[in-house]
């Protein structure tokens, strides 16, 4: 995943930048309501459950399991040669919070496959959390 044509995320958005800042430290972060502890994912500036504008990024354990996946066989972009797999990973610590990841080829996965996050430099000052299969 070192291809320089790989599209990098906008990493300094007002609402999502904290995710990528944590990734630079090698940490996985989820936004929470500081008042009622509800996870706010995808991250936003307001907790509609309790009416609080006080939100904060918290580091969570970088482990999860596969919720679903698809093997991409038809190429759309040169940075992503086929076959590859897109998996949707649910974070162990925060049920219901999901992140997607790229996996090379057609790995042997199923719903529930354990995963662990790793942190890749996609360009200077931008780190992208992605997930790999966690060995038992």
């Amino acid at each position, binding site marked *: 995943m070192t291809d320089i044509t*790989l599209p990098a*995320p906008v990493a300094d958005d007002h609402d*999502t930048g904290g995710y990528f800042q944590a990734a630079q430290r090698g940490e996985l972060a989820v936004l929470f309501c500081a008042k009622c502890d509800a996870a706010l994912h*995808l991250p936003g500036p307001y907790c509609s459950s309790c009416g609080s504008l006080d939100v904060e990024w918290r580091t969570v354990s970088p482990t999860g399991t596969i919720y679903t996946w698809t093997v991409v*066989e038809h190429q759309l972009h040169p940075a992503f040669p086929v076959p590859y797999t897109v998996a949707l990973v649910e974070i162990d610590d925060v049920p219901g919070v999901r992140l997607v990841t790229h996996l090379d080829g057609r790995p042997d996965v199923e*719903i529930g496959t354990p995963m662990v996050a790793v942190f890749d430099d996609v360009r200077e000052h931008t780190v992208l959390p992605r997930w790999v299969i966690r060995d038992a």
Partner: protein
Amino acid sequence: MTYPLRDRCAIAGIGATEFSKKSGRSVLALGVEASLAAIADAGMTVDDIDGIVRCDLDSLQHNDLAHALGLPELNYWGAAGVGGGAPCGMVAQAAAAVLSGQAKSVLVFRALNGRSGQRYGHGAAVSAAVGGNGSYDEYFLPHGLLSPGQMYGLVAQRHMAEFGTTSEDFAHIAIACRDRANANPNAQMHDKTLTMDDYMAGRMISDPLRVFDFCQETDGACAVVVTTAERAKDGPNPAATIRAAVQSGMPDMQGGMLFPALMRPTLTTQPSASAAAKLYERAGLGPSDIDVAQIYDCFTITVLLQLEDYGFCAKGEGGSFASSGALQLDGSLPINTAGGNLSEGYIHGLNHVVEGVRQIRGTSTSQVPDAEVCLVTSGIPVSTSAMILTKA
């Protein structure tokens, strides 16, 4: 309280261009042709039209279409979205404009060079840095999740795992739509038959979805004229009464390429479930009253989810329902009788509205005998819309 719009407006006219892979014309030219056809079909002239509803994904704007057509007045305009979720909501908006006295008769259109121009199925225009500004694409695109088809691959896989749905189930949906297209000379797939063997031999695009699970990106336009039920009686062709219409969604994010829909508590129940409940309540009808349905089909799995959400079978039984033969012309729920997005053309579901009117008129190339009640649905996973058309 009775739904205030019930039976008070109708679709008086329908129009469509040829559907092709390369129109060789501007979207303005396509929009004008479909609009003129719909206006004439309603027995009207441009002097009778004073409102326009467009879709947010169209590049053609209301004023430019009004100017090209030579409308003497433009007293109402509006837009609905997102994309394929819009068509029935566009009709509802037009009906509301008519009933509230803001316009006499309203033109509803979609005009696309969806194959030769910008191809929606090719997904996001990926640049060096992606996402931000409320799109949330930064969470998805850098991992190679790029297109609606890939997202529906994730949804289909999950449905298969939760309920035992099979590729054969998806195939029965593709084949039903193709069989209807084979009878429709204006369908893109008119001359191409599809068997179970053909389906299974189809190229895998985003496993478990094969090439035949994907709709036909299309150049073309559709238009309909919405007016009062009373005025619609004056036309030369039977009008389709709007029994009820609905827009309904989950109040969740749908920015960027719609991938935030993957964060919902479940992937196998869609906004069509809440749309169905409201629609049936407003109509005073239920799934057993539906004679024929035009079900939005950007992908086969999209249909399967809606068969469940609109109550034609229980949640999880969409696969076995599709495989039972129910969707064929002699089945309990004939669908997409012009071929749908899958085999007629992908005008993002306004072609479903046009075909719904044909069924009520009795003029479909795959006419369901004595069809009096037609369900038309629009796209998911975005906030969606739907309506029920009936005979006047």
